[in-house]
């Protein structure tokens, strides 16, 4: 067959198949759109991060620590005139409205950023009025985020109190290049300079101040010079001494890793939509080719070879795959374009590419590849059509050999696994995904089979004729029951699981605080302030007041081995490195709080040793056990402690708890601050906060409710993105269902016509179809919901270590929506058959 004839035949074969082709293309396009949007967004973010690497840090290099940076480090850097330096301090504190009468004004927790020098070195600080930041800040003037103005009902030019001192608001800051991504902020930003900070006197002992030094190398300096400087600094300060040195490349790497982690997960969610699309493609192709069997027999009779026939339909699959791929890629790129508009503030970079050629190639490649994979079996089936059908209609295609069948399944599984491994960038995760899909599809197929076998005989005993016929339709030859149940069911699993996890997370964060749990934390209380703070809390009606001393320290050794060595031994274990090198916060107590339980050892039992009690998970991270020796440095003074108990903590009580609790009689004279918890009267939260802010401006108050709400809001925005992707799988499921139904439209039309001729009304026929599809919805809904609930239980309890709730309402909603959507789709897809006049159909027959 020459090329011209091949394309002529392709065109002729397409006639009258447009509806089927539309389903093929739509199923594929939905999946490709999901894949392209995830890959595209991720590629655009990666590219943005690469491009804006210096902006993300606002410098070439930053050095940060919770302790003031050592003077010799300053010397090292200041003796090199080519370097530009800016000192930054960041802390959380309270701001309040300066009230002319002297009574306490409304207060608000804020995130303070103290800037001494040029800021930023790279990127854009959006301030209003526009212009450099330096001149706007003075010992008496600050720049604040717009939401602080809203919350405190202030405007530019008003005064606010910081540390009890009044500052004039000189402008508004909209964004900072190095603010990082994410929805979690304790309060609005306030920018001030060093003079202002000293005047506010907020740098008191024990305050949590993050010191950061921004370093800029001369313009055009190669990346290697930045790395060299970073190495030099690290050598001078010691890498694990609580001082973090980051180059713009490190910052970029951290973000890239985060992007890839998210991409892996979302990539698999998108792949599920694509696989469902593939299922739809297989179903549509199978139905289409089944309708072409007679034509294939004629072709063979006229002299087309089996290979010619297969090539002809393969050509269609390729062309349709291409069309679906292109449309899906366009839709995916469009989504990529709009996502930043919806959740731009959650993204680390702003100026994202409109589309990503790599993502489009990946989406189209995966889409077309999977489309061909899923059409392989129906395409090969064309070879088994006997030309003898031209003489005898009852000649069925030769059955597929068992070996070929097994090979086909093998190829399909291998294809799915490859796609999953590619999307997850991880062979193991790809395998788990494939096994999960196979199990879920297997269970759904089994359920569909049981439905067809068991319900059909039962249905004969049903009352109304439409119900009997509706049930019987499920098992009639050519019914799309199996494919529909699997497709809808897989979609329901994903969406139900997402809904459960989202609700579980949200409830965990938004749920009622346990009775007696504190509603607020007070931090940075100086020890001599505590009696007055406590008195104030009591006067304001607070209950459950609790307070402990906090001593900050650094861990130097574990069983004689230095923390630096230990951290170097586990370069990939972020949790362990964090546990070893963090600023350790110690307290001392006679008795452990009620929400602690000792699981090993006995509290303060060894008169010979100075003891410490370690929380179980933290002990695991540190790699310590009973009898281990921890060497601390408490502001220059070494202290060796022996682990004498390991305990668990119920963190959900929100009480004051510590990883490390030290035996009394050791730390009492060490430099310390106090933190406190209290349950504020319900109506008096704001006034208590305002009075506290007015009388103790250095004390920071964190309202637990607000904090949890903020986290919940942030999580909800992130999960909404996942839900959006999940909805693609439902769309794919519905398309498959509609495609399956419409594939049998000819037989359906004939059946409807016959039933109408025999006296069934249109309403009864509609009720019959509703019964059929509702039953598909019931089975897919039950199995899908059960699967989704199980998956959510696994994710919540195993992966997130949260509690799991059954949420009966969510289960019912999932079931009801499955049934309603499936029945509606069925009716809509059969609308044509319902409307046609019986005579027209029977004549055509």
């Amino acid at each position, binding site marked *: *067959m*020459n090329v011209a*004839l091949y394309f*002529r035949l392709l065109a*002729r*074969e397409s*006639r*009258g*198949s447009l509806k089927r082709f539309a389903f093929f293309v739509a199923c594929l396009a939905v999946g490709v759109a999901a894949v392209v949007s995830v890959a595209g967004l991720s590629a655009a973010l990666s590219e943005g991060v690469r491009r804006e690497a210096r902006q993300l840090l606002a410098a070439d290099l930053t050095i940060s620590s919770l302790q003031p940076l050592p003077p010799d480090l300053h010397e090292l850097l200041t003796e090199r005139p080519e370097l530009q330096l800016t000192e930054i301090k960041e802390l959380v504190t309270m701001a309040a409205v300066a009230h002319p009468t002297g009574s306490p004004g409304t207060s608000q927790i804020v995130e303070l950023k103290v800037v001494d020098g040029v800021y930023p070195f790279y990127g854009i600080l959006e301030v209003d009025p526009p212009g450099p930041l330096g001149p706007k800040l003075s010992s008496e003037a600050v720049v604040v985020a717009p939401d602080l103005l809203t919350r405190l009902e202030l405007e530019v030019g008003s005064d606010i109190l910081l540390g009890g001192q009044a500052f004039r608001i000189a402008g508004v800051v909209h964004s900072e290049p190095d603010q990082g991504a994410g929805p979690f902020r304790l309060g609005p930003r306030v920018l001030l300079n060093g003079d202002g900070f000293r005047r506010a006197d907020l740098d008191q002992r024990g305050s949590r101040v993050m010191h950061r030094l921004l370093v800029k190398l001369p313009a055009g300096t190669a990346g290697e010079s930045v790395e060299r400087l970073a190495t030099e600094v690290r050598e001078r300060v010691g890498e694990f001494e609580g001082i973090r040195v980051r180059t713009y490349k490190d910052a970029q790497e951290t973000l890239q890793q985060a992007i890839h982690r998210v991409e892996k997960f979302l990539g698999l969610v998108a792949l599920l939509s694509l696989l469902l699309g593939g299922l739809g493609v297989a179903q549509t192709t199978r139905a289409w080719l089944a309708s072409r069997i*007679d*034509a294939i027999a*004629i*072709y*063979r*009779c*006229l*002299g*087309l*070879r*089996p*290979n*010619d026939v297969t090539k002809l339909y393969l050509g269609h699959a390729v062309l349709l795959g291409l069309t679906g791929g292109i449309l899906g890629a366009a839709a995916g790129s469009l989504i990529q374009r709009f996502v930043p508009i919806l959740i731009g503030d959650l993204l680390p970079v702003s100026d994202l590419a409109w589309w990503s050629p790599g993502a489009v190639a990946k989406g189209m490649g995966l889409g077309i590849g999977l489309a061909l994979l899923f059409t392989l079996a129906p395409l090969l089936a064309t070879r088994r059509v*006997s*030309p*003898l059908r*031209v*003489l*005898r209609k009852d000649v069925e295609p030769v059955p597929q050999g068992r070996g070929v069948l097994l090979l086909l399944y093998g190829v399909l599984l291998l294809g799915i696994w490859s796609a999953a491994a590619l999307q997850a960038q991880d062979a193991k995760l790809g395998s788990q995904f494939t096994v999960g899909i196979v199990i879920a599809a297997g269970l759904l197929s089994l359920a569909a089979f049981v439905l067809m076998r068991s319900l059909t005989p039962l249905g004969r005993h049903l009352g109304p004729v439409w119900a009997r016929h509706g049930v019987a339709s499920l098992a009639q030859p050519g019914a799309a029951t199996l494919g529909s149940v699997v497709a809808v069911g897989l979609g329901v699993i994903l969406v139900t699981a997402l809904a459960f996890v989202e609700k579980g997370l949200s409830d965990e964060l938004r749920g009622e605080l346990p009775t007696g749990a504190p509603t607020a934390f007070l931090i940075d209380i100086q020890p001599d302030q505590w009696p007055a703070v406590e008195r104030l809390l009591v006067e304001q009606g607070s209950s459950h007041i609790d307070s402990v001393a906090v001593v900050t320290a650094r861990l130097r050794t574990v069983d004689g081995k230095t923390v630096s060595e230990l951290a170097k031994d586990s370069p990939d274990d972020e949790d362990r490195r964090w546990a070893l090198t963090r600023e350790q916060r110690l307290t001392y107590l006679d008795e452990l709080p009620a929400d602690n339980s000792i699981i090993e050892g006995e509290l303060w039992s060894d008169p010979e040793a100075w003891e410490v009690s370690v929380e179980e998970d933290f002990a695991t991270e540190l790699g310590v056990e009973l009898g281990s020796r921890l060497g601390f440095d408490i502001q220059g003074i070494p202290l060796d402690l022996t682990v004498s108990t390991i305990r668990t903590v119920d963190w959900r009580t929100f009480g004051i708890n510590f990883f490390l609790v030290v035996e009394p009689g050791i730390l009492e004279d060490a430099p310390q601050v106090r933190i406190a918890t209290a349950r504020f009267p319900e109506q008096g939260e704001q006034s208590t906060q305002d009075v506290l802010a007015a009388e103790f401006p250095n004390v920071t108050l964190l309202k637990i409710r607000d904090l949890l709400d903020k986290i919940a809001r942030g999580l909800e925005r992130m999960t909404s993105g996942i839900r959006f992707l999940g909805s693609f799988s439902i769309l794919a499921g519905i398309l498959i269902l509609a495609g399956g139904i419409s594939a049998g439209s000819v037989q359906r039309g004939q059946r409807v016509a016959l039933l109408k001729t025999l006296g069934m009304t249109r309403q009864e026929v509609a009720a019959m179809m509703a019964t059929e599809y509702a039953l598909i919805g019931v089975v897919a809904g039950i199995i899908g919901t059960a699967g989704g609930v199980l998956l959510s239980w696994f994710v919540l309890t195993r992966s997130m270590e949260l509690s799991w709730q059954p949420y009966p309402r969510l289960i019912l909603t999932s079931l009801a929506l499955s049934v309603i959507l499936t029945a509606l789709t069925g009716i809509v897809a059969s609308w044509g058959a319902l409307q046609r006049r019986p005579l027209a159909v029977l004549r*055509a027959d």
Partner: protein
Amino acid sequence: MSASPRIELRKLTKVFHSGSADLSVLNEVDLEISAEESVAILGPSGSGKSTLLALVAGLDRPTSGEILIDGQSIQTLSESELALLRRHKIGFVFQSFQLLPNMTALENVQLPLELLSDSRAQDRASELLDLVGLTDRAHHYPTQLSGGEQQRVALARAFAPSPAILLADEPTGNLDRRTGRTVLDLIASLRRRFGTTLVLVTHDSAAAQLADRRLALEDGQLVPATSDTDGLLAPSG
């Protein structure tokens, strides 16, 4: 006339396996048909006429025996080789017309010529449609044509590549008597024009009159048709 017959069947046997029972439809059938000869095979429904036709066309495989087309044994050919044999040598006419529903009348006739890479496929197809009197229906789809018209298109398609052999399976079975007559006349005139060997399978003795030689299938054997045989014919199912 060539030395070897156009179609030769040697001890051709076809047994269908149905459950535990074997049904022998053709039993060591021998037959020679020379070029340009026309043979009608009569027999009641289920006697094996269509099976015989399918075997000659290479649409089915015999249980045993040999089929030779122009001296070439065809039962050892692969499916692809059989397709090429049909493409080059065999035309078909069926009871149920078997037009491709998504092609116009002209395209249906064009297709066998296109498969032979005939650069004048469209012109030849038009000529053929003209011969069967359907020039004005060339761009109609099969569903837009009457039964008689469809069968005339099928005839044009069968004769388009000037095949050496035409196999006709109850070509008038689905047509009324008058239309059937027209179709038979067309077959006769086209056959003469193209010098085609004809194997006509029918239960209709009137149709069989078209052929030079009339045979009947009885108990799996070919025997010369007699008036008795004709009288035994049952309406086709």
